[in-house]
């Protein structure tokens, strides 16, 4: 079984995603990086599902895809509102919650 290759691919994607989330300042890029993380998880789920010959993995991956779609919808709306208020989507500037 070539499970390892899938897991490696997923791990790489995950790391790329985490880097994007932490390092990019552009809100949209951060959202895209979150998608990368989610999809790396999907790869893991499907790979394990196929490996163990059980449909649960695919079912969960479908759930994740559906949830991710909703998440992106809300995320983009937030970014849009930030842009309207500040004329910028630089996340480092959005720090109204500072304690």
């Amino acid at each position, binding site marked *: 079984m070539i499970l390892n290759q899938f897991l490696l691919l997923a791990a790489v994607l995950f790391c790329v995603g985490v880097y994007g989330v*932490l390092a990019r300042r552009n809100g949209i890029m951060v959202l895209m990086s979150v998608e990368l993380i989610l999809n790396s998880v999907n790869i893991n789920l499907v790979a394990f599902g196929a490996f163990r010959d059980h449909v649960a993995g695919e*079912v969960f991956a479908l759930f994740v895809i559906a949830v991710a779609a909703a998440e992106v919808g809300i995320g983009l709306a937030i970014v849009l509102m930030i842009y309207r208020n500040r004329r910028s989507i630089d996340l480092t500037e959005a720090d109204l919650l*500072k*304690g």
Partner: protein
Amino acid sequence: MFAAALVAADETVAYGPSSTDSAGFFLDYAWLVPLLPALSFLVILLFGKRMRGGGAGLGIAAVSGSFVLSIGALITWFDHRDEAHEGVAAVHRSVGWLTSGGVTFDAGILLDGLSVMMLLVVTAVSLLVHIYSTDYVAGDSRYTHFFAFLSLFTATMLFFVLSDNTLQMIVGWELVGVCSFVLIGHWWEEKPNSDAALKAFLTNRVGDVGLLVGVSILFFAAGNTFDTLTLSERVNAGEVSHTALLAASLCLLAAVMSKSGQFILHTWLPDAMAGPTPVSALIHAATMVVAGIYMVARLYPVFWEGMSIAGSSINMLALVGAVTLLFGGLLAFTQNDIKKVLAYSTVSQLGYMVMALGVGAWTAAMFHLFTHAFFKACLFLGSGSVSHAVHSFDMKADMGGLRKAMPHTYRTFLVASLALMGLPPLAGFWSKDEILAGTGGWGFFGGTQANGAYTLMLVMGMLGSAVTAAYMTRVIYLTFFGEYRGHGQPHESGPRIIVPLYLLATVALLGGLVNMPKGFQLWPKAWQERFGHYFEPEAAYFPYIAHARPSWSLGIAATVVALAGAGAAWRYYFKAVASRSAASAQSLTEIDDGPVSRGGLPRAAHTTLVNKYYLDHLYNGVIVKAVKGPIAKAAYWINQRVIDAVVNTAGRRSVTAGRAVYDHVDQTLIDRIIVDGSGRASDATGENLRTIQTGKVQQYAAILFAAATILAGVFMLILSL
């Protein structure tokens, strides 16, 4: 949700003695029968108003589809039964619905003779009622709504009939109750109608408690199963304790008493006449009230063992039925509303069915259910046709002499009445005679040798048959003979009302032929007892029942008794009352110096009947008043004197105690040390922690990922140890 998805993904599961291989399209896909009207309910409810004909056409189409599928199921079942040599397996299809606590809840269908027969009866009567309604409720303000719920009513009854487990039966049972509530209260703008709907619903709730408890007892007693087949088999094999079965069957009997209108919980049923007549026909013939009978028939081993039906001479089930059939029938005498007479007649006929089940005459009970469904539907639709013409249900005030104005209604009503009276050769005779034979109480010329010697039940059945014949003679006289007493010119109803009447009357005329007694000399041997042969289960899930021998002498005696009842009423109405009417040149409904007006016992009996044995007084006047009056007063007294005194004393004491506590504990300990101290502590902590709250999302994310990484590391460390 996830678990359900997994279970559903498994292959279809089947238990028990059912065959898993295909049993033909109509049996495998019998779930389509309730599905069609259920879908039509949704569509009519959502889009009915915009459809041409207000959705009635769709309802009729859906029920026709169900009817055709039921016919298909019936024919397939005949083949299935003929192929089986010894015993016949029920067709059982089910899917796991959800699993909880090690118990799998299934949803499925169970087809054997019983359910196939019920499918046919329900869809046939419902189809005719649908067609009839297009004329009867035409122009009603909630026409669409009416047809939507007519569809749902049919769907829920079919769903109930197909249930393969007791849990699903409860669901169907309650849904039928809700639909009847909606339909009885169809004209809810008038207070009595909505009261009647509430009464039907609430009385049924009383019995529903019995159903819930009974099903729970059965579940635990039979080893954690809801499955009807498994349950019945275990009961039959003697694996369930008799005490548990007795308790369960008594609880279920309470449910039957409320649903099927058995004496003392029957009071909702005559009031249910407040609904539109087609609904009454549907409730009283094919749905609602026969649900109780069906439930007993379906869980028959429970009653068979629990009530010790075999070899006995009395049991609760038979007694309830016998009392109901006689006392319900007597009530029909004093009613002037034609539909109420028929309602009490239904109570009485349901009593016959319950009694038959109680004495072990299972096939006779089902056969009577079958014939009764058709002739009673015919009677109800006939009474609707009459009231459509005279705009009233009052036989004494507004009817009379309608036989000339409404010849078609008269003819069909007469045929159905004769069937109800049990006169040969109409359908009712054969089914009623089979019940009487099934009591095993007939001792002459060799007797009938059934499951026990239920002599009392035979006597009650005979008396009931005389009473039935007499009150139906009264109805026919008051409605169709004498002079017309109402207003306006009555006219015959249209074809959409007449054609269903003729179809139903035909079945009432010939329905008996499907179950001619075994050994009946005048009928070909191959065609005898077809109903019992095809519909009575012969399998491990059904008790071994001894069949009564048909008896010529009993048949003749029953006919003579019925004729005597009819004759007495005929002498009074057609002779005495009619001649007085002719003499006084006006249409009379009774004689001034008749037995009732002479005082004494007849008068007292009449008053009791008019007041319906004072049962409504008992329920409203005594039980409800007792709760409202003395008990409420007593509760108030206790409230004022006992509870308030306690409260006051306690209050005073606590004020004193409170003051002491306030001075010492509250001010010093709590305020100074705990409250102020904790405030200062959190203030300091907050000052220190706020430096982490930068407001920058990415810093939060970095902390999150760092923590996750550390946790993952710890996790792997623990795993590797």
